[in-house]
């Protein structure tokens, strides 16, 4: 396999893994949301994320099978790879915490992915561009929804404001790796940082919140070095396929 297709496959898998793992995490809110409408909202977003992950895994499987003559499928890539093979951003695997933390994570993540997909839309890779265009339509709603919630909670009661502040403290250190390119990265992520910060700051200002300065940034996810939380997610998500290989609905 040549280096270029190897990079391309790893990059597609990294996008697939981030969207799948965040989808799996958000899915834990199903029937546990603070109110019915928002329970429905977060699970709808989850459905979009899992759908996007499927598009990426299907495309990755096609490429792997072409260059490596294997027989991968979207399912084998999601259910049969090990922890160190997963390249998702660390923020996607963190426990949900309270509603504020879930909202803030979605806001950080979706605001970032919107910029990523806007880059991919311009890429030479036709299938990637098609997935990106499709995803952007959905992510626009995710960004809007999560932005509104950050403002609602940040500029809400003392309790909700404090919860938002705690969420920022818990999550900020996981945003640094968004912009540190892995060797397989197909777009210039470092160049997206300023635009992303601009968006975050604009919403934070309205939410009477502020961006932390000079904090330590944890990295590793893109290269398969994860927090202790990923193993537990995979154990739950993969147990059925590993126990009953090839099981279908």
């Amino acid at each position, binding site marked *: 396999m040549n280096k270029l297709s190897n990079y391309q496959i790893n990059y597609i898998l990294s996008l697939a893994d981030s969207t799948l793992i965040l989808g799996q995490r958000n899915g834990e809110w199903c029937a546990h949301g603070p109110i019915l*409408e*928002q329970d*429905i*909202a977060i699970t*709808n*977003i*989850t*459905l*979009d*994320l*899992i*759908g*996007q992950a*499927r*598009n990426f895994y299907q495309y990755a499987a096609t490429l792997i099978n072409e260059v490596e003559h294997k027989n991968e499928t979207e399912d084998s890539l999601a259910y049969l790879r090990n922890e160190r093979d997963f390249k998702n951003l660390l923020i996607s695997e963190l426990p949900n915490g309270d509603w504020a933390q879930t909202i803030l994570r979605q806001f950080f993540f979706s605001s970032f992915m919107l910029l990523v997909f806007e880059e991919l839309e311009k890429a030479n890779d*036709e*299938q990637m*561009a*098609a*997935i990106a*265009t*499709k*995803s952007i*339509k*959905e992510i*626009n*709603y995710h*960004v*809007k*929804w999560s*932005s*509104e919630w950050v*403002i609602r909670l940040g500029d809400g009661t003392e309790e909700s404001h404090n919860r938002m502040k705690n969420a920022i403290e818990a999550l900020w250190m996981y945003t640094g790796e968004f912009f540190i390119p892995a060797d397989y990265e197909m777009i210039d992520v470092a160049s997206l940082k300023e635009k992303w910060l601009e968006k975050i700051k604009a*919403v934070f200002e*309205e939410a009477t919140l502020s961006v932390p300065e000079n904090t330590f940034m944890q990295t590793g996810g893109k290269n398969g070095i994860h927090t202790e939380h990923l193993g537990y997610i995979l154990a739950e998500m993969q147990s059925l396929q590993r126990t009953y290989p090839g099981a279908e609905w």
Partner: protein
Amino acid sequence: MSDVIKEHIYKILEQVSDPEIPVLTILDMGIVRDVIRDDQNNIEIIITPTYSGCPAMDAIAFDIKMKLIENGYTHVKVTYTLQPAWTTDWMSEEGKDKLKAYGIAPPQHISSRINKILFAQEENIECPLCHSTNTKLLSEFGSTACKALYQCNDCKEPFDYFKCH
């Protein structure tokens, strides 16, 4: 492909409905992108997903196959295409009328008009029950991926709005 066969296949596809909104056929939805037949009589139906995670797509693909087999087309393949991305602009006028009669407010604007301004909502969404446009957004996300939840300020009825996409 001869127009007669293509027309016949489209007639059959008219009988396949969206499992989540049974009053709409997949043609009303604008999901069917093309029908192709090769010289060995293999039929390929190309469809495009509405939302990436729409769980109805697998059911739709299955229903298409079954309906065509029932009508004597045995070699049927359903393939998905993402490009160009589906938009509510492709929904037929007839489809929009059917939606309204069913109690779901049809997409009101063209998709490029999605309002990204925070806390803004799509304006003048008509209540499918009393036809008042004095309505408010309850949630951008509704009972399925394609719908938002609105409420009528006049008759107080909550209703689904098929949001622009």
